[in-house]
């Protein structure tokens, strides 16, 4: 049974990765999950300089979903390289660094800093974060500005470049086509849906940052649709995510066209979610005599 997949040049021993921002910098869940068993670890969004993030409350629970407005709290790229990557290098797992910037140049400089960095297997370019004032989703909402960021990153690194797209657009396929042309090796979809919650006692938005990003099982149908549409529009591989909590969920994404999947919010509910998703995929393949996971990619289109 072959589980190995290749996402834009990143070789993964199986198709199950962690979603950025839901698995910290790798160490936090290492007591619950053997990192060696994962297909890839995608770490928290990283910026050039350290960031404090947004004021509390940063999360709110919604029906089968989670709103977050963390605001890219992170120790900055230098600290990530010096203090956190060494821990991850102990494991036999590709590490993908999620990068975010305020300007096109920020992204390029991050890409440069991480280029040829031992222990970095690829970059996930976050042009879809709804929780920061500058950059983030603004870039990802428009095919042209999205392409501009990706071109800058592409020119600054020889690492595989994954563009992470926002679902908060009229046509995600148009953005996908644009970043593919700009040189992205793969696509991650989806980032969170823009949402909010209001506390009727205080009559104020629940989140410190007012709006936030919706993730978790609630968004799964939207994420699957995005993967389905983008699979028809572009040829580069897709890392699918959005509400995946079980092997069955992951298989839906793979059949819709994802070459691999990432588990996000589900880690909070089940710290072993990644491993359970992987087992679920393996069980299905065994029961259905699927010898190669790659044979299932896009199966629902046939």
């Amino acid at each position, binding site marked *: 049974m072959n589980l190995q997949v290749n996402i834009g040049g990143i070789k993964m021993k199986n198709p199950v990765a962690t979603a950025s921002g839901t698995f910290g910098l790798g160490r*936090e869940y290492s007591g*619950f999950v053997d990192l060696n068993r994962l297909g890839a670890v995608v770490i928290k969004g990283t910026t050039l300089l350290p960031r404090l993030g947004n004021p509390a409350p940063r999360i709110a629970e919604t029906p*089968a979903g989670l709103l977050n407005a963390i605001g890219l709290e992170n120790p900055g790229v230098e600290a990530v390289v010096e203090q956190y990557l060494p821990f991850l290098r102990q494991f036999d797992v590709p590490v993908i660094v999620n990068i975010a910037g305020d300007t096109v140049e920020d992204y390029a400089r991050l890409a440069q800093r991480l280029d040829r960095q031992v222990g970095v297997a690829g970059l996930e370019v976050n042009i879809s974060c709804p929780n920061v004032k500058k950059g983030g989703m603004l870039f990802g909402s428009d095919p042209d500005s999205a392409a501009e960021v990706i071109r800058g990153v592409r020119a600054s690194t020889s690492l595989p470049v994954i563009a992470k797209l926002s679902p908060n657009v009229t046509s995600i396929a148009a953005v996908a086509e644009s970043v593919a042309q700009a040189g992205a090796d793969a696509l991650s979809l989806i980032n969170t849906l823009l949402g909010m919650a209001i506390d009727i006692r205080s009559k104020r938005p629940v989140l410190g940052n007012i709006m936030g990003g919706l993730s978790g099982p609630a968004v799964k149908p939207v994420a699957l649709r995005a993967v389905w549409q983008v699979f028809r529009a572009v040829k580069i591989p897709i890392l699918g995510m959005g509400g995946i909590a079980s092997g069955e969920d992951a298989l839906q994404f793979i059949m819709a066209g994802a070459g691999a999947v990432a588990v996000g919010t589900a880690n*909070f509910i089940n*710290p072993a979610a990644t491993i359970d998703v992987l087992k679920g995929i393996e069980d299905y393949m065994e029961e259905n005599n699927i010898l190669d996971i790659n044979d299932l990619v896009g199966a629902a289109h046939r």
Partner: protein
Amino acid sequence: MYNKNTAIIKNDEVMPGHWLLCLDSPDIARAASPGQFLHVRCSRTLDPLLRRPLSIYCADRERGRVYILYRAAGRGTALLAGMRPGDRLDVMGPLGKGYTLPSPGRSVAVIGGGIGAAPLFFLLSEIKAIYSGRLENVAVFLGAATGELLLASQTAALGFSPYTATDDGTVGFKGSVIDLYIDTNGSKVDRIYACGPPPMLKSLSRALGPDIRAEVSVEERMGCGVGACLSCVCKVREGAGEEFRYAHVCKDGPVFSIQDLFF
């Protein structure tokens, strides 16, 4: 530790709206220390989605039992209150950084407000063990909205005679437990341990001199419970002025030094 199928031994309403949950979990009982919490799934379905953080009320290491005292505050805890002995609970823990235990002979004050007092019982039973039962130096202060919500008998059962305060004056001092503490405790103590609602911690912080060490437990909304999601932040002092950094309650806390917090 993570166990999807922790057996529920008991789950009884011990005060109006408050339940005492007893879990069979030798591993957690062994590892737990006062001030730490469990991260509990109150539902087997996707709604409500997140776990709920609940402090460890006490741990019976011999029998391998862990207790939680909780208020049915909303949907999650209401579902929890509906569970019965024999049901299985999905539990992570013990998580977080708890209280620093005192050395025997040090004079300490333990101050709890409302359901916030829950983790202090575990602390008191550890103190009792450390002090070998010689509890002259331990002053316990309990506050609650009304008499029937005071955890006085539970405290007394451990051998402590608590000072009590209630908002409605039904039992003990009429007023806040902090006012009671200030009224009562002329003499300085070496360390204070406190837990309760934010206004209580705030007035404690105002009442304290700068040289008293106080450890308090704080609450914040949590996602992961292990430091991965960065959601459960509270501001802690960075230098002398108003400068701060964000600490993560689940990992750096829930117990913090009161001097580090902003109120």
